[in-house]
């Protein structure tokens, strides 16, 4: 199966004079290659497949399995070399199919199979297993191994998501290399020696990596299996299509695999510009949510306190009536739209066209939890620009938590010494270990921190060395985004040539913004208007303000005061409970189109299964609603929505109000609220395999602050700001800056948003012993 072993997309190169070009022959055929390239990689561009197990194009070769032996002609006759560690050379003559090579390959395969249990009929990998396939194509046929095979306890759980069957393992070092080299989580290792070599975790430290699913994908046998997929299907029953993950805005290339109209698995696909084949575990395993029983399957209308299922035509009619009434009675400005970042580009365009047709100007795809979409108008950088930049400045949330595969790409650049990272952060992040400089600041003080750094001679010298990319996003939901904007402007003033990689995290926020569904940072004014009773009709496009808006009180008041709410959603949420009409939307994998990732790259979304129940793609809902409203937007099919959006104006700086943070009372701690990879996001909670991986609500303090406060770690403490307080469990965490308190956002348990107020520039909390 092609997806388990996808090779990077090849970039077409013109035949210009290139000092690095070499030419070799493989089985008599001339092959053009580049200096330093490996024979196996060059051969992959020909029709001559060299069998392999340990080689993986995205990891350092180890030459471990010895399966890829070939002959290279040398001065003293043909030499047998491993093609995965031997670089090409000009004039090199390579044979991959001589008798000697075949004999060697058969020999290795026989040896690999010697201790292999051959339980293919009950193995998840059966049917897509390189060992099985190559045994068939390059193997000796029958095994002469009559000895007792190695025995190990059959699959052991090495993490919440991954099982390991050591009897099947062929010790190729792929999973372990991935863990240490790519993910930076060396929690699995070879142990013991020789014939007893095996893969293991440390006894009580599981392979708790955000990227563990990749090891399952790259394992060339069925030794590693993923809990959400185990025994679900046989590979030959699977159908697949290429798509893009929208669980965050990185835009990782995926392959959606389904059987009998059920999504069964996502696999990573290698996109050279974006994900290099990797996925994070949230993106990989949240496919379960698509199949969830909780989905809306039919339109609903409110009758008193409850919802009544209804037909699309009556639901659309009800929705249209509400909108029409609002516009006619209070004007187009009494209708507001929140959300849209979950949608495909085409959906977003359809809604934007409808909004503009109706004259609705109140719309925002963010929920007061990002940065102004002006960031998309700054001079832009791509992911590859960032990973090849001399210096990357991080003015962003913890990428490992929020944009996981971007973290992998930047980590790779930093560990290979290509790029130096200068990080500004309130709390040690995933990239702190790899950063050249990590500058801590208290919330609100980032401008000062940036200015100080720019005046540091060593940092200034580094920034002067070459191109600079600023990774820009919202690091803290408990402070005004104005501080980050100011800090960025300071960098832009000092280094006008710096480019920006905007990291707003919602899946298709950039597509929604480009389509015109959002402009600036309107959510707060929309919510304020609603809470003041000025919104007659609030349309929620896959948005759940009650869960996501930082100022919970504002969200509550807004939803209580909006006269009518129309929710276009896939799942019941806190906010849909308040809706008057629910229009069930088709989910990921149930609709096609395109999505735009954080770089502005337009990527394909594919439909693989039929939409659940009667749910429909959002663009269709918008179109039909337009029809009902008599506001024809002239859309017959999704193809009418593929228009290229007009290029937007280029800005040099972000708009700022110039707020400055007040002094902190030394008894108080300045609050940082940020996201973890696993939280109460709908697609996570409705995916049973990952739902329980959230760390839960709690407050994390530096141990020196804990000592000063004298509060008990592991026990509940009272956390108060202004006149409000919440109870949270106290944890010690020295990655938290002294003088600050960190609370993860949107976790099961007490909601920290009780303490957040949209008007506060920063939030200072007092932590007190309960007893």
């Amino acid at each position: 199966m092609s997806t388990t072993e996808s090779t990077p997309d090849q970039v077409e190169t013109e035949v210009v004079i290139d000092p690095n070009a070499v030419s070799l022959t493989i089985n008599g055929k001339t092959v053009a290659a580049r200096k330093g390239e490996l024979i196996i990689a060059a051969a992959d561009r020909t029709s001559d497949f060299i069998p392999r197990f340990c080689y993986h194009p995205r990891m350092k070769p180890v030459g471990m399995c010895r399966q890829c032996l070939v002959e290279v002609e040398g001065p003293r006759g043909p030499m047998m070399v491993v093609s995965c560690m031997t670089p090409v050379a000009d004039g090199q003559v390579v044979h991959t199919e001589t008798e000697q090579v075949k004999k060697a390959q058969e020999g290795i395969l026989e040896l690999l199979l010697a201790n292999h249990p051959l339980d293919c009929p009950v193995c998840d990998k059966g049917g897509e297993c390189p060992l099985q396939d190559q045994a068939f194509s390059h193997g000796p046929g029958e095994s002469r191994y009559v000895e007792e095979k190695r025995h190990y306890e059959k699959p052991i759980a090495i993490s919440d998501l991954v099982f390991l069957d050591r009897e099947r393992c062929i010790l190729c070092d792929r999973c372990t290399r991935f863990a240490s080299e790519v993910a930076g989580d060396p929690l699995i290792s070879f142990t013991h020696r020789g014939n007893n070599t095996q893969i293991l975790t440390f006894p009580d430290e599981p392979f708790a990596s955000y990227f563990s699913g990749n090891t399952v994908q790259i394992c060339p046998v069925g030794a590693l299996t993923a809990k959400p997929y185990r025994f679900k299907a046989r590979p030959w029953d699977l159908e697949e299509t290429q798509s893009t993950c929208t669980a965050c805005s990185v835009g990782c290339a995926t392959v959606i695999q389904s059987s009998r109209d059920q999504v069964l698995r996502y696999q990573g696909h290698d996109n050279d510009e974006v994900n290099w084949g990797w996925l994070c575990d949230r993106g990989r395993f949240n496919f379960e949510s698509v199949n969830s029983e909780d989905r809306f399957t039919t339109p609903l209308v409110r009758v008193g306190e409850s919802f009544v299922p209804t037909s699309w035509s009556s639901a659309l009619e009800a929705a249209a009536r509400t909108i029409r009434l609002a516009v006619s009675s209070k004007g187009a400005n009494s209708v507001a739209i929140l959300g849209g970042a979950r949608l495909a580009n085409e959906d977003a365009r359809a809604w934007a066209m409808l909004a503009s047709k109706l004259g609705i100007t109140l719309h925002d795809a963010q929920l007061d939890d990002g940065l102004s979409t002006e960031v998309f108008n700054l001079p832009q950088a791509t992911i590859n620009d960032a990973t090849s930049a001399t210096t990357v400045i991080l003015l962003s949330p913890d990428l490992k938590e929020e944009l996981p595969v971007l973290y992998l790409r930047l980590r790779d650049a930093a560990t290979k010494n290509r790029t130096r990272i200068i990080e500004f952060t309130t709390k040690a992040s995933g990239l702190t270990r790899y950063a050249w400089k990590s500058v801590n600041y208290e919330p609100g003080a980032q401008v000062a921190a940036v200015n100080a750094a720019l005046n540091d001679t060593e940092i200034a010298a580094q920034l002067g060395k070459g191109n600079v990319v600023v990774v820009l996003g919202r690091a803290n939901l408990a402070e005004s985004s104005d501080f980050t904007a100011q800090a960025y402007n300071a960098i832009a003033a000092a280094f006008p040539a710096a480019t920006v990689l905007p990291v707003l995290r919602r899946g298709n926020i950039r597509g929604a913004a480009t389509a015109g569904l959002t402009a600036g940072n309107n959510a707060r004014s929309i919510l304020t208007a609603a809470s003041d009773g000025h919104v007659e009709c609030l349309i929620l496009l896959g948005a759940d303000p009650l869960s996501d808006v930082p100022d919970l009180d504002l969200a509550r008041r807004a939803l209580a005061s909006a006269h009518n709410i129309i929710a276009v959603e896939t799942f019941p949420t806190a906010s849909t409970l308040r809706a008057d009409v629910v229009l069930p939307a088709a989910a990921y994998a149930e609709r096609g189109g395109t999505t735009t990732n954080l770089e502005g790259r337009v990527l394909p979304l594919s439909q693989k299964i039929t939409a659940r129940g009667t749910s429909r793609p959002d663009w269709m809902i918008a179109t039909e609603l337009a029809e009902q409203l008599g506001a024809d937007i002239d859309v017959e099919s999704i193809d009418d929505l593929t228009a290229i959006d007009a290029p937007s104006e280029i800005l040099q700086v972000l708009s700022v109000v110039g707020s400055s943070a007040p002094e902190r009372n030394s008894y108080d701690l300045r609050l940082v609220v940020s996201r973890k990879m696993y939280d109460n996001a709908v697609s996570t909670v409705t995916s049973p395999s990952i739902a329980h991986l959230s760390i839960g609500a709690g407050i994390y303090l530096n141990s020196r602050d804990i000592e000063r406060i004298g509060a008990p770690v592991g026990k509940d403490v009272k956390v108060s700001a202004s006149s409000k307080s919440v109870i949270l469990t106290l944890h010690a965490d020295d990655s938290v800056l002294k003088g600050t308190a960190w609370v993860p956002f949107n976790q099961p348990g007490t909601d920290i948003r009780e303490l957040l107020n949209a008007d506060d520039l920063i939030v200072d909390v007092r932590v007190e012993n309960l007893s």
Partner: protein
Amino acid sequence: MTSTYAHAPGFVAGDRPKIVTSRFEFADSYTIERYLATNGYAGLRAALSQPAASVHDEVRNATVLGRGGAGFPAGTKWGLTPQEVWPRYLVVNGDESEPGTYKDRLLMERDPHQLIEGCLIACYAAGLSRCFLYIRGEMALAQERMAAALNEAYAAGFVGKNILGTKFSVDIVLHWGAGAYVVGEETALIESLEGNRGMPRLKPPFFPAANGLYGQPTIVNNVETLANLPWLLCNGSEAYTAIGTKTSPGTRMVAVSGHVKRPGVFEIINGVTTFRDLLYGEEFCGGIRNDNKLKAFVPGGGSAPWFTPDQLDLPFEASQVGPAGSMLGSGAIMVMDETTDIPAAALTLTRFYAHESCGKCTPCREGGTWLERILTRVVEGTGTDADLDQLVEVGSSICPGDFPHASNADLGLAAVPFPYKMTTICFVGPSAYAPVHSALTLFRSEFEARVTTRKRIPVTAAASSATGHAS
């Protein structure tokens, strides 16, 4: 600890030049006092009085062959390091574990200062700014002696900052392993020194001279190789090359064990002394025990293909031993007399290499154990003749093509010269097969007498008919 030297190996026999064992006769040979009283650190002084490059020239001119196994000249190896890449390291290979090999441990236990001085000379000549002395884990006494000697040498100003008041500064760091034969292989040694599993790296691209410890240029030299340097610097390359032959100058230490009258470690003349001299010479082993007949011997450590009496007159000269089908390796001869149970003897070596496989390459990890299992069956009398063919088949998956062996007049065999082709990264895999191949080729009848034809004896019946002890 009186018993340690109760059976001191017999290296004092004869009136031969002693380059590395000159102090062994003194009971206190390991102390700095004895060392200084016997021309100690004079080689270092001689080196420091000349530019580094001329010290290097001296070593190059002397053609000091590496004593770790591969026999590559030290001076030439140092010259392979890329210029202008700093820092560069010296790693001393004191992991001595090749079956039959016993010399480096003696050099470390009995004359630690000589090794320290050798390290210093190498570092000075090749611009190596830090030296790691890797001693095999199981050698507690060698570790102790080296630690004590280093402490003495630091205190006396021979090691550390501004040695003997010059600009030459180097630390020698004592490091020790924890029991893994393969770590003797230089790239595995480097992995181990980096705190990793001792799995060899593939050469290329990881030639230590260019890409070694922490990715820096690194010289790996054997203990004995370095122990030659103090004498060389005191006496000059001409005196050195006056001993031995042009291609194999100087002396080398050889351990002869097994069925000889006086097993021992001897400092012999390189290129000149023959196997017959060693096994039968009165100044060496004095013949086979009980005046038995010699059946076979392993000429260069457990990895080497075997010789029979036909090869006794070969000298210790790589250019003659290679074409004859084996190698000199680590200077270790294991002697088997006529009473030896050949399949059982081969099994002790195959078991060793199978057990010591690092597990990295499939052929070695799986093939070594498979060989061991089949051979065990054969030795226990439960094998079939198909097993004998299978041994060769598995062997050819590790080493495709002709495998080297000695000539044999009785069998009408012509020699297949060293080396072999291999599908593995290092020589551990092939070494599991080498004894099997030698034994099967030279003593096939002994195997055939042990196996039944074409059918397997049920395991229960096999147990009662089990025979076979080594010797």
